[in-house]
């Protein structure tokens, strides 16, 4: 299914490139990225219709130069003043054909950086609520509540230090994978650090380039997302390859959810790169549509996150941190009321089991566990 989608995208992309013509002096509008949103006949797309525009040239160029709503700011380097002026006269001369106003505009007029960011904020909130719910399930499995008295004996300062160290070493650095298999660590890192890079660049762009103006390739704000995207693309290709080749990828329980995550990621990456590539080759009529598709794919990636393989991003570091905390409690040698436990570090779970069994037997009262009787 992935390959088919990829193929369709490529065919569409190539066909679109084939259709595009070189710029002629008469029709600058038709060759610019304007048509992506305002339509080939300037009767609108996701952006408003420009035909017979009643704006003055001054206002028109100020919108172009500073951006408005979802429209990015377009600087001198991309479009000089003379071309801007001729575009202005061109679109004013276009005929007003109300039948050509597309439905997309009726949706598009509600989209602004603000409304889009609100949609994504809502998606993040939704994901966060379910992520916290999921995490509380895992912490209940880990019997963290029953471990806390022993942690208290060991000292909270040390406990926080252990957890933070584990989050960095096991979480961000993925130390266990690095020790066991450096190649896998690198390929996993492409995805992990690529994702980190994308999130970081999105935050930086929101701060330093909120109108999403076109930047040169050498600008760090452009370089970071492109390199991160490349890393993710490479990583995704590897993961897809592994899912095809690895006979043991089906663990009998989670395969469907794993594939949902991988497929969404493929859609996000492919559509993201198509946007960049099509823009680069000047195939402007497709850019906005595919960009919208890209945003939708990202939206679904976030919303389904807590239920797909995506969740391993926070579940695994959290559980590994609890494991390290338990190991630290055992190593610190605090008095847990017995001399030594076979395979230490599971006393809190054993007492929970014992209490549960006694509940089934209709007994209550204090429990003492004996090891090596």
């Amino acid at each position, binding site marked *: 299914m992935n390959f088919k989608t990829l193929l369709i995208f490529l065919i569409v992309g190539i066909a679109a490139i084939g259709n595009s013509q070189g710029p002629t002096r008469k029709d600058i509008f038709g060759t610019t990225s304007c048509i992506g949103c305002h339509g080939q006949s300037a009767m609108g797309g996701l952006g408003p219709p420009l035909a017979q525009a009643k704006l003055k040239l001054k206002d028109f160029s100020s919108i172009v130069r500073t951006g408005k709503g979802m429209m990015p700011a377009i600087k001198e380097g991309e479009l000089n003043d003379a071309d801007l002026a001729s575009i202005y006269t061109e679109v004013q001369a276009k005929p007003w054909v109300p039948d050509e106003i597309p439905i997309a505009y009726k949706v598009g007029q509600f989209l602004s950086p603000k409304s889009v960011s609100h949609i994504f904020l809502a998606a993040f909130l939704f994901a966060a609520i379910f992520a916290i719910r999921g995490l509380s399930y895992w912490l209940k*499995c880990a019997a963290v509540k029953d471990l806390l008295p022993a942690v208290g004996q060991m000292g909270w300062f040390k406990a926080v230090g252990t957890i933070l160290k584990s989050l960095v070493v096991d979480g961000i650095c993925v130390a*266990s994978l690095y020790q066991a298999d450096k190649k896998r660590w690198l390929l996993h890192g492409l995805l992990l650090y690529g994702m980190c890079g994308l999130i970081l660049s999105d935050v930086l762009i929101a701060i330093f380039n909120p109108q999403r103006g076109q930047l040169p390739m050498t600008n760090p704000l452009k370089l970071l997302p492109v390199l991160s995207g490349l890393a993710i693309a490479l990583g995704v290709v590897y993961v897809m390859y592994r899912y095809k080749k690895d006979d043991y990828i089906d663990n009998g329980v989670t395969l469907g959810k794993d594939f949902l995550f991988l497929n969404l990621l493929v859609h996000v990456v492919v559509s993201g790169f198509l946007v960049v590539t099509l823009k680069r080759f000047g195939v402007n009529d497709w850019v906005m549509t595919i960009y919208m598709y890209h945003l939708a794919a990202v939206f679904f990636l976030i919303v389904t996150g807590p239920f797909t393989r995506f969740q391993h991003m926070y579940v695994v570091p959290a559980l590994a941190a609890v*494991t390290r905390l338990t190991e630290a409690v055992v190593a610190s040698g605090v008095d847990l009321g017995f001399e030594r436990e076979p395979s230490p570090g599971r006393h809190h779970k054993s007492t929970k*089991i014992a209490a549960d069994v*006694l509940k089934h037997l209709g007994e209550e009262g204090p429990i003492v566990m*004996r090891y090596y009787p």
Partner: protein
Amino acid sequence: MARYSMLIDLTRCIGCDACTLACKQENGTPYDTFFARVLNVESGKYPNVKRIYVPVLCNHCDDPACLKSCPNKAIVRRQDGIVLVDQERCKGTGACVSACPYGNIILHRNEEEWYLDETERYEKEFVKKRLKQNVARKCTYCAHRVDQGLNPACVVACPTTARIFGDLDDPNSEVSIYIQEQAEQTGRKPFHLLEEAGTQPAGCYLATMAEQVPHTMGQTDGIGEAKDYESRRTARGRK
């Protein structure tokens, strides 16, 4: 489709730890690794005290938390319900150790104690190195034995047959018959440990019987008749 399960009758367990040893021998588990543990639980306050033995081992859940937490897909649930940790794929992250609500996954990182080198005949011919160093490991229901139609080692070793192993989906399997018999004769229904964890374990337990009334299976002549038992108890001055 088979659904393997182990039933542990707590009334029968005498806490001898034969299962622990049989498991260690069969699986060749290294230092401080116990797949089949027996919890010795004392409860209550003098004079109303009680001691019970609770054998615990991997429950081979239908919805295993350890499996879902594994980032390396090293934990697999077979079609017959047996959950295994793939020793080659495991990278020793340790997420599963915390994820298991029963504490039945054992991971020693930076393991120093390991098998001796294969220099002597004993190490060459008898020690079974089924496990890899520094990775997570757990009970396999002796999958290698089950695949040959044998019972797990702990089941074979149990002197009181407190452990009954079999296929829950097969009404004629040992475990299904035992469950049915016990429901009819003693009214006991099997329960799972920590059901609120929601992992749907396969392993189940039968409670101890506070009032042990021996069933004579139609015999009326003498030994262990219910009435007799009751009168002996009262004679000894117990409540």
